């Protein structure tokens, strides 16, 4: 009999979770209905900025089916929603302004969609009808929505930040950078905006909260990327519920992209209210609410200068960014335009001097926080736009200017605080050039021109810091949380294995990838392994999934637990085979005495661990169940080169992405099918940012003008081409045992600059703002800004 093939790492194994998703058996939060459940509806502010003179809920409270109506005053006794990252001012080291972020608005509303009241009723319809009966007397105040206009605006979002500034922060060598720019042979300057995006996971946010008076315990089902973090923040910082009295379950979650990381007021209010009404309360956001009240992404205004010598060798990069944080500080908002942005400004290049200042401002808009890439797309866009522009100004080939500046020896300490462990940037550039058939571009351009069209080619060579993060570094930089991950490997007596991970899958396919790692390491079939996640009642702890960290951090925690299982298994096997512990090796699912034909299979060792008749009781406890916490020693640094080719109709401004080529170095790859799928999705969001998507507020009224799928241009199937995606053989991460780096955000980080570089190349202009809509491109083709 042949041993079953248990080499799973590196194979495109079909996903195990697909069976339930394809047959309608997924269990998303809104699919869960609890006995006796009621329904919550939030009354939201119609104004961008207003003082609440009074709220009269008496008519609503008496409306049919209504159990309770809650407003801001009910939450005065609990904490505000916390911000997880403290940033200090560069001027005097003082901490950022951190105004209270109330569960429900109290005294003032600060953006359209701000939560004013929660109505709990027997049905959604009754709750909605009652919400319409709430009379709020608003004194409308001036509003400011644009980051560039926030400082000194007439509108003051929070009294404690009179100039609407949350912090002014800086990194790098200011004087050295200024001196290098002054003495440079050439300086390329660029100013631009990184457009506000609205995440729009197709599953809207949803929650179902209940309180059990018999056990004094709360249960929250919630569409969330990190249930333990949700529980910790809600219990310890806001509601004061003992953590062991609350269970948070994030079941199947229909996409997150960052927007489901954060602790929001909605689910917090539901948990608190569920005890008051004594019944479960369910709330599912309508899409209109998702547009108004999910945390948005990006929204930077930036000026950058790149100084170089006469040969195009970079000498210095100086950046000033104003970042829009919205009306309140969302959970990780403050880290995004600083720690996750400015630290990446070296990109793939050995630029010796870099300095970046960031002014973060409050505005009367939805809070802005991490959205796929979170800071790194903004950094990558900046670098790759200015490098490509510099190449044009220096009359150098865009690939050549990159070659002249690559970091080529590792580890490499950047001037902005990171140490890249490994990489080979020229390898992905060379391969991307082949895959994109750059050689054939001139002929394709001529063919386009013969049709009266313009064709352009653009590069983008991104790097990102993933696998966040070493807790000690994060802590030194202001993080108020650790960023490790936890895993548990529970071996059952029969040798079947249940793995509990603190990572959370909302599309990433952990049930497959993680099972591949476990089955491969233990030499057992994948069917013998199940992966559990998303439930604080099952998993010992977890920091969750964001920042492309699941496999690099969460996967490593599992590997460490597996190592402990194997180490204990060796001792048990040594006892069974009457050998020394040190002579036992584990390979192919068998514990063997090295150099002999003595072997016991994994399942016999597990059975012995639970039926310990013949067992080394003097040395070991029975059972085979191990857990591990893994805190990485460094970030991981995925990198790659993207090439975009566009055809532009100058008469209409319509841009067609003809080719989108991605060559990524993610280190080792466990499941190439899933990894490529992650890149595809990222590319679509990156192209969406470059061409289609824009969250727009009216400057006068502060109303969100892009509040539905009819106004906010989500990429659809016919907006995109098929992609050419290749994962490079790559440089394995040097500091985690799997050698993996993370692949979830790369596409969204690398794509926007490639697209805009291609459009600029096609039109022969220096800049085209994002999103490059037909009207914008049409104007650019005519030399109008």
């Amino acid at each position, binding site marked *: 009999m042949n041993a079953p093939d248990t080499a799973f790492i590196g194979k495109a194994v079909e996903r195990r979770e697909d069976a339930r998703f394809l047959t309608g*058996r997924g269990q998303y939060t809104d699919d869960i209905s609890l006995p006796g459940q009621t329904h919550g509806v939030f009354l939201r502010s119609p104004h961008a900025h207003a003082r609440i003179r009074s709220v009269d809920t008496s008519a609503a409270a008496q409306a049919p089916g209504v159990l309770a109506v809650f407003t801001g005053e009910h939450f005065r006794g609990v904490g505000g929603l916390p911000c997880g990252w403290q940033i200090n001012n560069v001027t005097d080291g003082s901490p950022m302004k951190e105004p209270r972020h109330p569960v429900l608005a109290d005294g003032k509303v600060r953006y359209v969609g701000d939560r004013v009241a929660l109505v709990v009723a027997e049905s959604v319809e009754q709750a909605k009808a009652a919400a319409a009966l709430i009379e709020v007397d608003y004194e409308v105040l001036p509003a400011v929505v644009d980051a560039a206009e926030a400082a000194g605006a007439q509108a003051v979002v929070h009294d404690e930040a009179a100039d609407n500034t949350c912090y002014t922060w800086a990194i790098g060598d200011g004087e050295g950078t200024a001196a290098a720019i002054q003495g440079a042979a050439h300086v390329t300057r660029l100013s631009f905006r990184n457009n506000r995006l609205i995440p729009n*996971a*197709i599953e809207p946010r949803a929650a179902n909260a209940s309180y059990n008076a018999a056990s004094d315990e709360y249960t929250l089902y919630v569409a969330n990327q990190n249930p333990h973090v949700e529980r910790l923040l809600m219990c310890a910082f806001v509601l004061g519920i003992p953590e062991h009295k609350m269970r948070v379950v994030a079941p199947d979650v229909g996409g997150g992209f960052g927007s489901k990381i954060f602790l929001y007021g909605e689910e917090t209010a539901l948990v608190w209210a569920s005890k008051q009404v004594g019944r479960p309360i369910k709330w599912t956001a309508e*899409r209109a609410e998702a547009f108004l009240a999910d945390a948005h992404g990006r929204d930077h205004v930036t000026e950058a200068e790149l100084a170089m010598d006469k040969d195009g060798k970079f000498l210095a990069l100086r950046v000033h960014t104003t970042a829009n944080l919205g009306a309140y500080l969302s959970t990780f908002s403050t880290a995004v335009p600083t720690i996750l942005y400015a630290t990446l400004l070296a990109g793939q290049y050995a630029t010796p001097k870099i300095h970046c200042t960031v002014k973060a401002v409050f505005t009367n808009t939805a809070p802005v926080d991490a959205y796929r890439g979170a800071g790194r797309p903004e950094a990558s866009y900046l670098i790759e736009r200015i490098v490509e522009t510099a190449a044009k100004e220096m009359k150098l080939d865009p690939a050549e200017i990159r070659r002249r500046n690559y970091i080529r020896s590792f580890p490499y300490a950047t001037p902005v605080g990171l140490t890249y462990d490994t990489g080979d940037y020229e390898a992905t550039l060379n391969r991307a050039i082949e895959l994109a058939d750059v050689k054939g571009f001139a002929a394709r351009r001529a063919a386009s021109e013969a049709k009266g069209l313009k064709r352009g080619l653009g590069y983008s060579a991104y790097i990102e810091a993933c696998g966040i993060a070493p807790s000690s570094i994060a802590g030194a930089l202001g993080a108020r949380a650790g960023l490790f991950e936890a895993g548990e490997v529970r071996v059952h007596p029969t040798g079947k294995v249940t793995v509990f991970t603190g990572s959370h899958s909302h*599309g990433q396919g952990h049930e497959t990838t993680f099972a591949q790692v476990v089955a491969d390491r233990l030499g057992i079939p994948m069917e013998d392994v199940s992966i559990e996640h998303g439930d604080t009642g099952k998993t010992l702890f977890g920091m969750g999934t964001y920042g492309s960290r699941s496999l690099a951090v969460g996967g490593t925690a599992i590997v460490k637990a597996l190592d402990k299982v194997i180490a204990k298994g060796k001792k048990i096997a040594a006892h069974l085979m009457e050998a020394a512990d040190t002579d036992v090796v584990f390979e192919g699912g068998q514990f063997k005495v090295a150099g002999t034909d003595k072997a016991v299979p994994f399942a016999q060792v597990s059975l012995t661990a639970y039926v310990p008749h013949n067992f080394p009781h003097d040395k070991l406890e029975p059972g085979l169940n191990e857990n591990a916490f893994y805190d990485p020693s460094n970030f991981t640094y995925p990198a790659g080169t993207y090439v975009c080719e566009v055809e532009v109709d100058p008469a209409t401004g319509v841009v067609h992405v003809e080719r989108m080529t991605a060559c990524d170095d993610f280190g080792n790859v466990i499941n190439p099918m899933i990894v490529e799928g992650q890149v595809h999705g*990222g590319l*679509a969001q990156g192209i969406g940012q470059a061409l289609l998507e824009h969250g727009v507020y009216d400057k006068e009224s502060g109303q969100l003008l892009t509040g539905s*799928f*009819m106004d906010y241009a989500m*990429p659809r199937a016919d907006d995109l081409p098929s992609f050419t995606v290749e994962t490079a053989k790559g440089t394995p991460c040097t500091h985690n045992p799997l050698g993996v780096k993370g692949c979830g955000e790369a596409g969204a980080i690398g794509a926007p600059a490639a697209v805009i570089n291609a459009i600029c190349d096609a039109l022969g202009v220096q800049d085209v703002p994002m999103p490059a809509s037909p009207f914008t491109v049409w104007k650019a083709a005519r030399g109008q800004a």
Partner: protein
Amino acid sequence: MALLTLKVNGREVTRDVAPQTLLVEFIREHLRLTGTHVGCDTAQCGACTVHVDGRATKSCNMLALQAQGRELTTIEGLAAADGTLHPMQAAFRSAHGLQCGFCTPGMVMSAVDLVQHHDCSSEAKVRDGLQGNLCRCTGYHNIVKAVQQGAAAMK
């Protein structure tokens, strides 16, 4: 309230429904067939797509009572009785045409209709035919492949 009788996934069902009940609410809340999803409130995302008399229909855009006497197929009724996946479901799996799975039921129901009633002879035509369904995860790359594979398998 009014009495609604229709065939759902091959079985006749009768329920009392309020006149304003949307078909998708009827499917999800009354029948508890939660594979049909709601992703928007403007009939833009297509996550709620089901088959009404064999044609893809956004069930958020139709009242339950409009389905009186008609035949409804939801994602739960697409596979064979023995559990064998429909060729389009199988193609989505083998082509990795889904990630979070939320748009998937609607996407699969649209894809089946696309193959049965429309021209999907080229990638461009498939992309055109999928315009009514939003996916935020896959970038559509593998969905397009899946639809082409599924179309071949359905012949």
